[in-house]
């Protein structure tokens, strides 16, 4: 194959057991010039240890302010097929479940308009359709709409929210993550498609404290399922685990962060002091057949997670320790709207809500949200004596 000799570096990445993206690029390249040029430009990057994409690009489809990332090569003469190489962010269905029909439709649309290359999925959760020229954008979107695929977010808007598999396939789910996600995505279509905020805003939903969508680290609004009553226990199954190869004392009891579990090996009795349990999920994770979350379920809402730009990464902070999460999710929607409103009113350009809370103080945020301060919001009270009083209080 003469083709191969043009990409000696990348060819080396076709070896080895892990699926090769190079192979995929070549497959696409066989029928698509864009994919082929992309491969060659990448080879050049591998050789010279530098990227060849120009800065930014603002392109889009009619009526939307986001959803397409503009991209142009610095080397249009060398790689004319990717002179314009924009990506679509296509909103995925809750939980990334697909019928093969749907996926095949998507492939057909993409082969028609784009490079034939995709990311399944992007880090935010979208289906990324990787590379189409400017002229193809609107027609491609029209065809996507035809098969019911809408665009996701980009720019200073609500980004495509995502959730864990939840009740779809997980017995731990304390929130109907899939439904909540679908509901709010539809509720906030305007915010998703028409950038209007100081910066991006992300919502991610996990059914329990295992946080399988990593919401606490990478969403402005992290919804994490939990419960308020007692862990449900099936004592027989506990005994079964003990009879299996689980060392309940060492693996469960000793690792319980609150020390609220007791294990009597002789009687095979496990006792949980639920009042002291912090619902970390560890014991349940280890013995899913024996232990289950309580029945009074809802979610903890944490706010402010994000990557390091500009002031360092933040993990989201507990703002609502417990909220019931049932359709039509009005409390949650109100919460989000109020928070956005406050942020939009007070935020500086490119200031995420977590940064704004840091800048104006948790006190100001809680006041705007009309929420009482509770110890669940903090891991420890302040260690510095620099705190404020309302002049009204000092009389």
């Amino acid at each position, binding site marked *: 194959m003469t083709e191969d000799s043009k990409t000696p570096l990348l060819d080396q*990445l076709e070896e*080895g*057991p*892990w699926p*090769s993206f190079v192979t*995929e*690029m070549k*497959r*696409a390249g066989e029928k698509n010039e864009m994919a082929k040029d*992309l491969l060659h430009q990448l080879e050049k990057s*591998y*050789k010279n*240890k*530098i*990227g060849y*994409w120009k*800065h*930014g690009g603002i392109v889009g489809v009619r009526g*939307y302010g986001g959803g397409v990332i503009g991209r142009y090569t610095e080397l249009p003469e060398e790689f004319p097929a990717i002179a314009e*190489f924009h990506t679509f962010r296509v*909103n*995925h269905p*809750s939980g990334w479940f697909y019928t*093969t*029909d749907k*996926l095949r439709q998507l*492939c057909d649309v993409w082969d028609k308009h784009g490079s*034939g*290359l*995709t*990311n*399944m999925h992007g*880090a935010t959760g979208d289906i990324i359709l*990787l590379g189409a020229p400017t002229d193809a954008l609107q027609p491609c979107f029209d065809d996507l*709409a035809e098969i*019911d695929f*809408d665009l996701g977010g980009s720019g200073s808007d609500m980004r495509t929210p995502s959730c864990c598999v939840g009740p*779809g*396939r*997980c*017995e731990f*789910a304390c929130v109907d993550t*899939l439904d909540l996600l679908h509901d709010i995505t539809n509720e906030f279509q305007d915010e998703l498609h028409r950038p209007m905020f100081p910066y991006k805003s992300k919502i991610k939903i996990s059914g329990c404290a*295992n*946080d399988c969508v*990593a919401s*606490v*680290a990478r969403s402005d609004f992290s919804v994490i399922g939990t419960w308020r009553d007692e862990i449900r226990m099936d004592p027989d199954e506990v005994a079964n685990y003990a009879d299996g190869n689980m060392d309940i004392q*060492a693996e469960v009891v000793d*690792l319980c*962060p609150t020390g609220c579990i007791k294990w009597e090996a002789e009687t095979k009795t496990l006792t949980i002091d639920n009042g002291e349990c912090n619902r970390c*999920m560890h014991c349940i994770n280890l013995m899913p*057949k024996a232990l289950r979350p309580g029945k009074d379920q809802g979610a903890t809402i944490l706010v402010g997670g994000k990557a*390091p730009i*500009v*002031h*360092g*990464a933040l993990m989201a902070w507990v703002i609502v320790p417990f909220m019931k999460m049932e359709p039509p999710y009005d409390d949650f929607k109100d919460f989000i709207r109020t928070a956005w409103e406050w942020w939009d009113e007070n935020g500086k*350009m*490119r200031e995420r809500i977590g940064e704004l809370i840091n800048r104006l103080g948790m006190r100001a945020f809680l006041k705007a949200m009309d929420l009482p301060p509770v110890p669940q919001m903090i891991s420890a009270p302040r260690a510095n004596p620099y705190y404020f009083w309302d002049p009204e209080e000092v009389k």
Partner: protein
Amino acid sequence: MTRTDFGPPNYKEMLPPVIKENYGKWKYHERVKPGVLLHVGESGDELYTVRVGSGRLVSTDWIRDICGIAEKFCGGHLRFTSRHNLEFLVSEKEKLEPLIAHLKEEGYAVGGTGHSISNPVHTQGWIHCHTPATDASGIVKAVMDDLFEYFTDWKMPAHCRVSLACCLNMCGAVHCSDIAILGIHRKPPTIDHDIVRSKCEIPNVIAACPTGAIRPDPKAKSLTVTDEKCMYCGNCYTMCPGMPVADPVGDGISIWVGGKISSARTPPKFSRLAIPFLPNNPPRWPEVTDAVRNILETWASHANKHERMGEWIERVGWERFFSLTGIPFSVQLIDDFTLASDTYRSTPAFKW
């Protein structure tokens, strides 16, 4: 007029029948073997999941391939995970082993469940982004080829999440990963004043600099950078095409360790810097794969059962992490940003 704002496909139409029937009524799960989960509903229904590693950057043909498999074994249903793996959902037990056999035959990578490493969450790199300090897919491929045995097998004491981001924007959200691979620049921006003048919103560029290294230069209608204050984050470039930071010599990789997300046992933790720089060495980045393997194996051989990287390090202490891994301690590891003082040691109780 184009339709707009109709939202994503309804997930309900995407679910396989067994899920529709047992929706929200799963009772428990078992880890059958690496790559295979069994979920059992209150109804008694069983659902087997077979997890398959994905390179994430895939062609439509690949999608059609997996659709073919799902049609053959799973009634035309499949899903992807939050870490971009592919999952085949098998409701008929008798199809499980044939599916697995088929997958192996076709060269798919089955694994990634339980105490194995899963797919590294990653980003665009040189494939499609304008700010990368390295590639994404290539390093992931090299690392996973090297660690493949840890994907297909349960050889670790606990979960280990490897992630990669190709610049400080951290689209891979690597900041809470057990092992994070992060592209970094090491040279201040080179300024093209003509571009700055005509194309950049100067006040926004100035505000974008975390360390206040950028000042306006009203005379030149441009700006200046105090190089000593610049730590090469590239945020100015994000705001302004006239300030590129990428550089073949300056750019490379840093390695971070000990982050986690789940609240199991301990609260989530940030990843922390272990190796400030490794060179970009495509196509197989041997320095990076070696470093990751060293860290992973040092942890795997020393940690207690169920003890994540960060939990282990906190138990034995960072001084021990460095002595056990043999990673040299460099001054870059000592924080000097906003919360720095919280990371200094205020006790004579440490290990030699």
